[in-house]
């Protein structure tokens, strides 16, 4: 019986992380990109929890929400479209 580093659930979550990162690069509407970043942060917290590090999971969830709020404030102060 061979152990792999991650099981299939974690593998699916890692693929979602890659897809969210690519989407943040390609989306032109910055508000949508911030929403995708919130989803990325949630999945990242779940991955940390899966890897037995609840400290980092709590910090990632809190800091992800905080960064989302601050970016939304910046978007409300500046332009919503990229470029």
């Amino acid at each position: 019986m061979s152990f792999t580093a991650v099981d299939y659930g974690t593998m699916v979550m890692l693929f979602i992380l890659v897809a969210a990162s690519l989407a943040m690069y390609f989306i032109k509407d910055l508000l949508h990109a911030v929403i995708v970043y919130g989803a990325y942060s949630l999945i990242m917290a779940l991955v940390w929890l899966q890897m037995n590090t609840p400290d980092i999971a709590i910090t990632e969830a809190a800091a992800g929400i905080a960064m989302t709020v601050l970016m939304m404030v910046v978007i409300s102060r500046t332009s919503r479209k990229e470029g």
Partner: protein
Amino acid sequence: MRLRTLPMLLILLLVAYVVVVAVTELPPYGIAGNPVHNQVSQRYIESAWEETGVLNMITAVVLDYRAYDTMFETIVLFTAVLAVIITLKTTEREGDGK
């Protein structure tokens, strides 16, 4: 712009594939022979509770063994807030003579 998007997407997918392959090649969790289990982590696990009196080992490392790192981390936060205030604060204080 459309011309640059496709090669960029291919390069990003290649990098993502390399990252996934590297993750699958990681050593399994919780096995005693892993290279991360050297004498440093062994020292923390065995004697952190009696050297610092703290149950949470991460707090013992962050706030006791590596307390200098955390101190300068708070100074980095202070500097970041100073930079934001200097750049964005536009309300004038009264009595400034301006």
